[in-house]
């Protein structure tokens, strides 16, 4: 297990290096931030001075070198926009997104397992058809549209939920999570259903039934765990995809998370924050992948002990 983890960590750390480089290149591609941060009437001289102060006048290689040095020291510089340390800003915003994503995925996985299993248990039954159709529809609704509809319907017309923001108890979570949830949930229901249909027709399920196991035992004791593997892979990808959804959700609901922060940083050419944010996201994805691998290994012994005795 330890060897397995060590190998996994080393091999997935390599992409991280490329992400570090990629972020830098991408950020520079977005163009010069000087105009944004100086008054429209600023002189050439002032612009040059500003560029020099922030190192934008140096060669790309020199900037890269500085950047790498910073990354190693975990110092991401200061935000052009707010003057705060970029790392601090990112770390402040990150938990909000992480919590949103974690709760969303937890609900998505639990819900999808229940509904997907139910649908798979009687393939092509009415319940199956309805579950499949609804999940497909959920997965195809544009999230921002859903979010605004939610605000108008539940926030204003029905007056059930706050329109937006983070003030209050559990009710403020409902709309952001629902918005973030629809797609992963819709996709996961279909994946779990497919995997369960496969697992339920596997020979070991027949064996379990031949032992007189109850249907509950067959579904949850034998099939479900095998069906978890494909669902887990997809859940991992969907979690990564949540960053995209977070941009929309945070923008609309004023959720103080990292998605909104990243979009603003791009629009404001706030390189330091962008770099820090993307890097943190990449590290999170890296950790997430390892967690998923650990889950694999916990669920399926073949992963942690690949060689047969």
């Amino acid at each position, binding site marked *: 297990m330890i060897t397995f983890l060590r190998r996994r960590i080393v091999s997935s750390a390599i992409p991280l290096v490329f992400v570090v480089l990629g972020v830098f290149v991408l950020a520079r591609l977005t*163009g*010069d931030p000087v*105009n*944004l*941060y*100086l*008054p*429209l*009437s*600023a*002189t050439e*001289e*002032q612009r040059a*001075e*500003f560029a020099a*102060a922030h190192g934008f006048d140096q060669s790309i290689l020199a900037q890269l070198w500085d950047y790498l040095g910073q990354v190693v020291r975990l110092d991401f510089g200061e935000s052009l*926009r*707010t*003057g*705060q340390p970029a790392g601090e*800003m990112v770390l*402040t*915003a990150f*938990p*909000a997104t*992480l*919590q*949103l994503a*974690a*709760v969303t995925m*937890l609900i998505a996985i639990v819900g999808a397992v229940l509904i997907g299993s139910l649908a798979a248990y009687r393939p092509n039954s009415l319940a199956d058809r309805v579950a499949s159709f609804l999940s497909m529809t959920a997965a195809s609704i544009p999230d921002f549209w859903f979010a*605004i509809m939610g*605000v108008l319907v539940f*926030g*204003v017309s029905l007056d059930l939920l*706050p*329109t*937006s*923001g*983070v*003030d*209050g*108890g*559990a009710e*403020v979570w409902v709309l952001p999570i629902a918005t973030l949830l629809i797609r992963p949930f819709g996709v996961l229901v279909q994946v779990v259903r497919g995997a369960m249909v496969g697992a339920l027709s596997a020979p070991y399920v027949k064996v379990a039934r031949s032992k007189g196991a109850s249907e509950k035992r067959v579904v*949850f*004791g034998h099939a479900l765990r095998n069906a978890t593997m494909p669902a887990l892979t997809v859940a991992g990808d969907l979690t990564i995809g949540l960053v995209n959804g977070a941009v929309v959700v945070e*923008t*609309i*609901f*004023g*959720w*103080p998370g990292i998605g*909104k*922060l990243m979009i603003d940083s791009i*629009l*404001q*050419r706030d390189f330091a924050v962008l770099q820090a944010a993307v890097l943190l996201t990449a590290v999170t994805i890296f950790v997430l992948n390892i967690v998923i691998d650990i*889950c694999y290994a*916990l669920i399926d012994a073949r992963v942690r002990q690949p060689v047969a005795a």
Partner: protein
Amino acid sequence: MPSSAPPHRRGLVLAAAVLLATSACTVANSEAGDAGAGGDTLRIVLAQEPPTLEPCESSLTGTGMVVRSNITEPLIERDPATGALEPLLSTGWRQTSPTTWTFDIRSGVTFQDGQPFTAEDAAFTIDRAVNSDLMCNVDGYVFDDSPLGLHVDSPAKLTVTTEKPDPILPLRLSFVEMVPRTTDTGAKVREPVGTGPYAIADWQTGVSITLTRNDTYWGDAPAYPRVRYVWRSESSVRAAMIAKGEADMSTGLDPEDATPENSVAYPNNETTALRLDGTQAPLDDIRVRKAIGLAIDRQAVVDVLFDGNAEPAAQLIPDGVVGYNDALKPAPADLDGARQLVREAKDDGAPVDREITLVARNGQFPRVAETAEVLQYSLGQIGLNVKILMTDTAAHLVYQLRPFPRDVGPVALLIMHGNQAGDAGFTTSQYLLSDGPQSYFGTDALDDMITDADQLSGDARQQAFADIFAHQNAEVAQYAYLAHMQGLMGMSPSVHYEPNPATGDELRLAEIRPADGDAR
């Protein structure tokens, strides 16, 4: 089968539960304290979070909205409606020589941290904003490159000297917000101390800014003890918050979200226009430029797209700004006339088929994309070939400012110009000079007129600038005007506020009071 779950699975569940529990705390509890406290708290929803509250950045809309005249105050303030300068922290000022101005400093004023405000602080603030390396936005916006000489004659008297004569120095200084001597000169401060009626109580990054009433304020006490700013970028969400009673006021609603119950319209000094690159064919032909001006159905755009919350424009500045020419009237759309002009230009060899890029910025004003589509369609109707390029702010600036990008062909840039200073001099030096930072081209004659006008004051100044705008329309035609815009301020019936042309840039909390008139 929970009974047979192996230990590691239970571990996972536990971990998830812990994560869930912690998550429920941090975000949700962040501001449980004053949620829904509608009574004595004024709740304002902005379009975006201010990047900083540094007073020397107060010409940035996001910053100024919160800071200006609420947390910090300038020496002099300009009445947004009349344009007249009025005393604030300076009780009086006079020009003692062409290059010297003297300001009397108000006594008995203290900063929110208890320090008294003196001429020393005024000198310090001006020096910090204008002469330092902080690159304050105020600095570049208001002053040109020449440094100011500052001399403190007494705690109540400040003398400012300029290198060249500056007839409107007091107006310029009305942009500089006063801060105490203890303020950092090496870096910008995010949460400043000022003399204003409110002090910063709490800034939760990404969530809200809360101000509390400054009980030692030298002037009249404002109505609300607390003010809370939040931000939502979608206009419909802001409108929903007003409708739901989650917010009392909101900046910038889109026309379709605005109703008479939840909003008020106000002129915001902004003027929209197409700036035409007369250095590139076919826009180098004045007939084509004039045809573009003729093709635009301003009234229809104003009525349909802006829901009537605008005025068709015929010059870059609105009424009320020094230099406004009330003789210039927007022409009604004349497609036939426009086609005729284009045809003539074509007959003389102008390549009218050449693709013109219409550059506009997302979020520039409500329904900007639709506006661009109307313009593109109209120009298509008169035989021009136009494509639309929507950009973000940074990319738009590339087109807006010298040096202009090369190899992009003829550009018609959709600009929105706001003359907050109230004097056409700011506009002409930027937008009409041949080498103005935001001007594609000009003529020697126009340049001379502008240089002369800048030296004048009073009625002569007004007349000179009015002539300049007429001349530009007749002889240069760099601009095809669209409209003098109006802002839509979201406002719940529970508050009373009268917006003014400056409301879009600064929201003076002291002018807001509960609708029923009770002070709390």
